[in-house]
């Protein structure tokens, strides 16, 4: 009876159980949740708004971590060359990095899934067309394609997202197509056709829910990739504009003075980026183990 209960539970319960069973993944998930909460709540918990010129004091510039400000408060992570509190700047940078990464990841997931499902379901010429294009996309180095798009379209948050979606959707399309092909071969899809259900209904109500596990895993890992790629682009100076600094841009700004011994301006944002991407990847890896259909009983 216990076994049937276990096998009958939904995917969410299984995911929660699987994550809890691994201490590494539990900690990583906790870190992710804390970082996401910090990003969302940044305006509330940051000591100052680092982009409000009235709140920053140019005479507080380049202070090392732990220094007292002229108003008596402490800059626990130091200040940058403009006198911004690094801790506040990192919270805002995290907010930008996460929102760009997640938006790009989700958009790529939606587009890639639609493409992959259509390729698998309709087959023939549509499939050839989509999958050859996917092969082409996967053949180019991610950063090169993103660079070219940004050079053509110019800077801006939405342009970075566009570039990231453009280089990432192909991964989703390929994964969804292979998962969907397996499902389409099963009798329940033929039974649904036999019951006269429409193609969209079969695709979205029958095939897609059964393709979700690999999608969730790839989605998680692609969000981490998107964050890294955005940081790289911003570091190279062609990503986000200076008015919306992400973690990558903070690292780039600090990099200019790194060799002068002012390590905190790029090392702390770098560490935060590392922790964020690392914990998302650990959670993604664990999801892959939990949702692997071959481990399913």
């Amino acid at each position, binding site marked *: 009876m216990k076994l049937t209960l276990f096998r*009958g539970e939904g995917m969410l319960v299984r995911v929660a159980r699987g994550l809890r069973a691994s201490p590494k993944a539990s900690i990583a998930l906790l870190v992710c949740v804390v970082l996401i909460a910090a990003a969302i709540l940044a305006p509330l918990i940051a000591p100052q708004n680092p982009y409000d010129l009235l709140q920053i004091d140019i005479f507080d510039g380049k202070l090392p971590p732990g220094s007292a400000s002229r108003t008596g408060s402490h800059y626990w992570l130091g200040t940058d060359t403009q006198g911004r509190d690094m801790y506040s700047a990192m919270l805002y940078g995290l907010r930008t990095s996460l929102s760009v990464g997640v938006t790009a990841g989700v958009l790529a997931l939606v587009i890639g899934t639609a493409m992959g499902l259509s390729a698998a379901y309709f087959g023939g010429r549509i499939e*050839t067309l989509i999958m050859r294009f996917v092969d082409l996309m996967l053949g180019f180095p991610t950063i090169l394609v993103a660079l070219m798009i940004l050079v053509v379209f110019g800077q801006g948050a939405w342009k970075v997202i566009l570039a990231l979606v453009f280089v990432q959707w192909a991964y989703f399309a390929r994964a969804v197509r292979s998962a969907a092909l397996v499902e389409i071969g099963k*009798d329940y899809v033929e*039974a649904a056709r*036999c019951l006269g259900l429409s193609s969209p209904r079969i695709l979205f109500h029958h095939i897609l829910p059964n393709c979700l596990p690999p999608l969730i895993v790839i989605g998680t890992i692609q969000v981490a990739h998107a964050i890294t790629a955005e940081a790289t682009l911003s570091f190279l100076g062609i990503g986000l504009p200076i008015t919306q600094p992400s973690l990558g841009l903070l690292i780039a700004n600090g990099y200019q003075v790194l060799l002068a011994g002012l390590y905190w301006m790029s090392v702390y944002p770098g560490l935060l980026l590392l922790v964020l991407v690392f914990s998302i990847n650990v959670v993604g890896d664990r999801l892959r183990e939990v949702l692997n259909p071959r481990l399913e009983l």
Partner: protein
Amino acid sequence: MSDILAAAENVSKKFRQNPDFAERLAIRLGAAPEPPTVHALDGVSLSIARGEVVGLVGESGCGKSTLGRVIGGLMKPTEGRVLHDGKDIALMRGAEARKMRLDTQIIFQDPMSALNPRKRVAQIIGEAPRVHGLVPRAEVAELVQRLLATVGLDPAMAERFSHQFSGGQRQRISIARSLAVNPRFLICDESVAALDVSIQAQVINLFMELRRSFALTLLFISHDLSVVRHISDRVVIMYLGRVVEVSPAGQVFEKPLHPYTAALLEEIPRLDRRGRRFTAIKGEIPSPMNPPPGCHFHPRCPHAFDRCRIERPALVAAGPGQEVACHLNMGKGLAHLPIQQGD
């Protein structure tokens, strides 16, 4: 002819892998062989009368499942026509096509993959009648309960997922799902082959009950003659994409006409022949990619003669309600023993 519910007229189905652009180029240049064509069905005609139970028997790979799917309208035939109520289903449109689609339901072989693992039983059974508006939304749950009771399951199980059921129970759920759209014609594609023998009997009895209470017509596809014998009015024997014999169920077991049918019957285990050694039909079933010329059965037939190797035997009447495709005894197969070859 209004007595005929469904009919296949000279239906052929060929499966051929469609080469993509690069492969076509390679074939054109002679670097790759032409992709092989599988003749799953080769000029099959079959008609099923209203209320009849037809058993379709043959070895694996003889095309019986393909025939089921073609008659069920899930696959288009390469050649020939499929008629429902005397109308070609390929020409049906709109409401007529929808009615035909719902009238004909297929019960699949594998009860594991025939049910969507992410849906609850109530959704599996209730989806089609709800989407098609066959019953008011408020009454769907009640319909599901009634159908579960009809197929012999506890209506309280409606909220479970399919993997919480045994094979036999799942097959009952599949049957309930098909019944939900009020079909007139059920095609059972090896529907009991994956079940234990005791469960097989239960599910077969369920089919017979349903046939009576819902006035169903059944096409029962199986590789197991003893299962078919139990329920069929008429038996159709297929070999390598062709129909070789059609007989009333009683006749086929008493007086098989085709040497292939006779060989199949020899192999049914019987209590009065314990201790007998089984002699499998000699040789393998030939590849449907490269079927032998003439009668497809000639390489394995003990009575084959020259004509069998050249000319395809037509399916002709050979007795009361019996048809056979065999050159023996002037096209009457084994009807008058001793066997006379040729005419």
